């Protein structure tokens, strides 16, 4: 419920900010405050709602001790930081609405992450926090370092998140469910668990900026300070620690190699991080960076402590987690105050802040005490507990203890540096900036956080009771958290640590430039990936069409070829020919195809290819397919006319020949493809076992389809969907052709000649309406006369073919093609004006009308209660004509007819008339001198 409220609030936030400016943050703060209130009153809870049952994914939420602690932090710190935002941002800051939305959304995602009981759900929230943090870090995206920092954080944490997802899937698939409770009782064993553990650790460590992923966190300080206080102290970076803490009980309990790998890597890497981060923090001059490296160090400590996996360490870890969120958020906010008032965070330029801003000191010092692990703050109780727990854990514990003590020394030292840098009087500070009015209300949030740290210190006993259920998940018993344990080894260690830390701070010179750990590896990986991408792309994406096609065809040869050989039927009866008559067209076809390949003149090649088409038509006829033969003849003719129309303008010869080597490769591929296709054809036909589906057609077509021509009934009825798709393609093609040729939109719209021809001379006989517009030298009276005589006959024939196609060879396609040829003849005889006179309509309108008729017929059947494109036989009684036998699919065929006519008309207008106009207007190619050398 509260999650949903966050989502709504995130959506509303920009509006609120626009209305009220930064004050809207007060209202938004109510939401995490509500979460905090819920956490104060509830210690546990569960809520399950099935979501995607097919994936076993449910919206399962559960609050236990660990997640309760984080809910408390996410809500409490979230509310305080939002309150802080209200004063931190000046009214009218650019992008504030977006910031408010993303921030609120982030708080919701973080809440979802810690209360998800389903691992996949948790992963989704996990990635959501990653993406939102990217937006928050890159909030001021104008500066390149900011963008880079945001991108770096995004890439590192996303990469880790993906690794984690694989680990989660391993666990979930093994357990058969993704709920924590299911996974915990059904862990895999052996190497599988080791792999899963390593992958999950990668995710957790990258999110929590543990070595070797530490580098992104300091860079992420590009974010506005409230973001750093929330994301990089209290919430997001805790997600990794949270995951480690969540998995620690079950993996340590599982034992074996996985537990060893877990402990060694979590503890080892955690300690390395603690030391490196603490050391780096000592050398920072930017107060915020100092805190950032301190955070890295503390996160290392937390990872190590939780990864150690004893009850004592677990309890100490929860206390430290709590303490760290409070003091680090408070200190970040303090730095924000200084930054806002002084305009700098560089400790070399700050002076006298201690004396001039006593309130700020009163806020910062308790928080810093907690950070250094000094009483009375909770940090002291936590650190004592860590020491005690490690002391109890035998030899490995003592080894880890040594590391933690060393790290704590560094912590004390950088805390001292922080306080000294922020507040001390320094003589050497040139052009120092003093405080100029620190807003009191800006201090509320850090003050509350710091006070909470101290209060928690005094209330350590109570906290112990609340947190100990988590520690009970481990074997062994834990010491109790307390502010005062009495004298003992931990106390001695604490005293030693503080003394050594202060000494270290005194010894180190003030203004050193420190090491910057990490980042180089990231850069190497990124540039390496980039280089690899360039190499792979350069090697595979050659950008050459023949290369790609050759590759595809080679795949056909190497996959289908061997399969063909392997499945070759033993001895099947193979005829040499279907009928001896077949041999003639086949021979013509083969000769024409072979000679078309090396032809150098365009026209020769086109005619040879046309010959193969006509030969094909003869084969169709001999095979018993008159419809096909008719269509093929017509299409071949239309094609020839089309090609010749364009070739008028193109150069007569092909521009260049490929070298002999390339030619050989091409011919080799061609022969192989031909062989494979012929073989596959033979194989497919001889492998046929089922009875052809079409055997039933002869009995069906007359009663159901209302026609005798089976092929036509298939086209307009049985497989009418196919035809519908096809005519749609034709419409698209026609439109495409027109748009490629017509170069101006207004001409395209008309698709006809714009200029009006001159009036015909009165004394000459008129055969064609626009015959006089053709140049005298090109005019052919013979052609004009013949055209005049046959045009209407051909048109009549086309309508006849259309209407009788249902019973005899013909139909919409053939009819349309015949009509198209009639128009072609008119165009050839009388030029583009004659074409406009013959068909004074927009080709687009014809196409559209055809499509409308075809679709309308299909939809009409649906409206009348049948299936789409179902046909019906109507017997109408028409006066004068008597009984008329109408099949509705004829209407569909009329649509097809119109579309084919429209296509031919469009092609004539484009490739014929418009190209004529280009020629008349002397539109010539762009001088290609600059491009010549690019020809391959």
């Amino acid at each position: 419920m509260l999650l949903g409220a966050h989502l709504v609030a995130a959506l509303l936030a920009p509006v609120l900010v626009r209305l009220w400016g930064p004050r809207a943050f007060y209202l938004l703060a109510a939401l995490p405050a509500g979460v905090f209130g819920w956490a104060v009153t509830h210690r546990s809870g569960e809520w399950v709602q099935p979501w995607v049952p097919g994936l076993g994914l449910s919206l399962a939420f559960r609050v236990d001790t660990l997640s309760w602690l984080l809910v408390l932090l996410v809500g409490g710190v979230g509310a305080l930081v939002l309150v802080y935002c209200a004063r931190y941002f000046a009214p009218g800051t650019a992008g504030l609405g977006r910031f408010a939305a993303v921030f609120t959304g982030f708080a919701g995602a973080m809440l979802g992450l810690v209360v998800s009981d389903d691992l996949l759900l948790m992963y989704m929230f996990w990635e959501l926090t990653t993406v939102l943090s990217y937006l928050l870090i890159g909030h001021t995206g104008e500066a390149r370092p900011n963008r880079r920092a945001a991108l770096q954080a995004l890439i590192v944490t996303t990469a880790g998140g993906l690794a984690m997802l694989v680990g989660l899937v391993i666990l979930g698939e093994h357990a058969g469910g993704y709920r924590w409770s299911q996974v915990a009782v059904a862990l895999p064993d052996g190497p599988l668990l080791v792999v899963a553990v390593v992958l999950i650790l990668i995710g957790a460590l990258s999110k929590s900026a543990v070595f070797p992923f530490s580098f992104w966190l300091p860079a992420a300080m590009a974010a506005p300070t409230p973001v750093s206080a929330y994301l990089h102290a209290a919430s997001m970076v805790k997600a990794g620690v949270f995951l480690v803490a969540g998995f620690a009980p079950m993996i340590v309990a599982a034992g074996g190699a996985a537990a060893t790998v877990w402990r060694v890597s979590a503890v080892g890497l955690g300690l390395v991080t603690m030391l490196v981060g603490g050391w780096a923090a000592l050398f920072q001059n930017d107060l915020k960076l100092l805190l950032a490296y301190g955070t890295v160090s503390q996160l290392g400590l937390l990872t190590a402590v939780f990864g150690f996996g004893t009850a004592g360490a677990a309890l100490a870890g929860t206390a430290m987690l709590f303490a760290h969120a409070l003091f680090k958020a408070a200190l970040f906010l303090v730095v924000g105050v200084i930054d806002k008032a002084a305009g700098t965070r560089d400790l070399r330029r700050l002076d006298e802040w201690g004396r001039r801003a006593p309130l700020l000191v009163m806020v910062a010092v308790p928080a810093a005490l907690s950070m250094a692990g000094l009483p009375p703050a909770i940090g002291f109780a936590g650190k004592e507990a860590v020491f005690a727990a490690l002391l109890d854990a035998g030899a490995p514990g003592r080894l880890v203890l040594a590391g933690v003590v060393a790290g704590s020394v560094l912590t004390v030292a950088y805390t001292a540096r922080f306080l000294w840098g922020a507040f001390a009087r320094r003589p050497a500070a040139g052009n120092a900036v003093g405080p100029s009015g620190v807003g009191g209300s800006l201090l509320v949030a850090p003050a509350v956080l710091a006070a909470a740290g101290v209060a928690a210190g005094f209330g350590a006993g109570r906290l112990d009771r609340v947190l100990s259920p988590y520690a009970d998940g481990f074997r062994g018993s834990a010491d109790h958290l307390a502010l005062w344990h009495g004298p003992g080894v931990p106390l001695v260690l604490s005293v030693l640590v503080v003394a050594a830390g202060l000494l270290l701070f005194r010894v180190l010179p003030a203004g050193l430039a420190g090491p910057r750990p990490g980042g180089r590896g990231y850069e190497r990986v990124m540039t390496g990936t980039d280089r690899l991408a360039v190499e792979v792309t350069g090697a595979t994406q050659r950008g050459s069409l023949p290369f790609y096609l050759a590759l595809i065809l080679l795949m056909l040869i190497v996959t289908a070829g061997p399969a063909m050989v392997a499945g070759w039927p033993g001895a099947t009866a193979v005829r040499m020919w279907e009928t001896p008559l077949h041999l003639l067209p086949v021979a013509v076809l083969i000769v024409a195809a072979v000679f078309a390949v090396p032809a150098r003149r365009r026209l020769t090649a086109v005619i040879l290819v046309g010959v193969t088409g006509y030969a094909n038509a003869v084969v169709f006829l001999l095979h018993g397919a008159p419809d096909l033969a008719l269509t093929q003849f017509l299409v071949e003719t239309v094609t020839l006319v089309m090609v010749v129309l364009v070739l008028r303008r193109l150069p007569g010869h092909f521009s260049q020949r490929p070298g002999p080597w390339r030619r050989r490769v091409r011919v080799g591929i061609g022969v192989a493809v031909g062989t494979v296709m012929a073989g596959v054809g033979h194989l497919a036909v001889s492998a046929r076992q089922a009875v052809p589906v079409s055997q039933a057609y002869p009995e069906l077509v007359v009663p159901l389809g209302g026609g005798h021509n089976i092929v036509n009934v298939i086209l307009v009825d049985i497989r009418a969907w196919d035809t519908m798709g096809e005519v749609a393609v034709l419409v698209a093609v026609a439109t495409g052709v027109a748009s490629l040729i017509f170069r101006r939109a207004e001409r395209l719209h008309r698709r006809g000649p714009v200029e009006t021809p001159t009036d015909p001379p009165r004394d000459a006989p008129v055969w064609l309406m626009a015959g006089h517009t053709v140049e005298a030298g090109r005019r052919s009276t013979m052609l004009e006369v013949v055209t005049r005589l046959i045009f209407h006959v051909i048109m009549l024939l086309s309508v006849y073919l259309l209407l009788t196609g249902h019973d005899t060879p013909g139909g919409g396609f053939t009819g349309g093609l015949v009509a198209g040829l009639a128009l072609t003849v008119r165009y050839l005889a009388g030029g583009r004006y004659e074409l406009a006179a013959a068909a004074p309509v927009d080709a687009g309108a014809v196409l559209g009308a055809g499509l409308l008729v075809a679709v309308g017929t299909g939809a009409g059947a649906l409206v009348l209660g049948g299936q789409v494109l179902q046909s019906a036989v109507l017997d109408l009684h028409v006066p004068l004509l008597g009984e008329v036998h109408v099949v509705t699919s004829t209407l569909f065929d009329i649509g097809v007819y119109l579309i084919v006519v429209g296509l031919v008309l469009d092609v004539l207008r484009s490739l014929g008339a418009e190209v004529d106009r280009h020629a008349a207007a002397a539109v010539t190619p762009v001088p290609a001198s600059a491009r010549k050398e690019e020809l391959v």
Partner: protein
Amino acid sequence: MSVSLLLAVGVLFAAGTVLLLERTLTRVLLGVMLLGNGANLLVLAAARPGAPPIVGVAEPAEMTDPLPQAMILTAIVITLGMTAFLLALAYRSWLLTGHDEVQDDAEDRRVRELAERDEGSDAEDLDADVVEAPR
């Protein structure tokens, strides 16, 4: 299926493929036409020759299979559309460049040159030298 038809199919496919692999768009177009004819013959060969499939003209037992015919009819007309479109492309190419050759993709060529020079892409934000602490 007969050897003569298979041979025709093989030759059409072979010749079509060779032309398809050319750079001249007109040749590519002719290759597509040859491939289309070859494919149609291949489909046709699935049916035995026989009488035209028109009820009343021949007995159903003598008819050739009508289904491949319907498919081929569709294919023929689609090839016509293809041809028209490729022709328009070739003409347009000639109009713009003075020839109808298919050029290598300019962007791909740029990447190829980068690879030959052993350089990375100039993608932003990858090669910043140091992690600067921004204010």
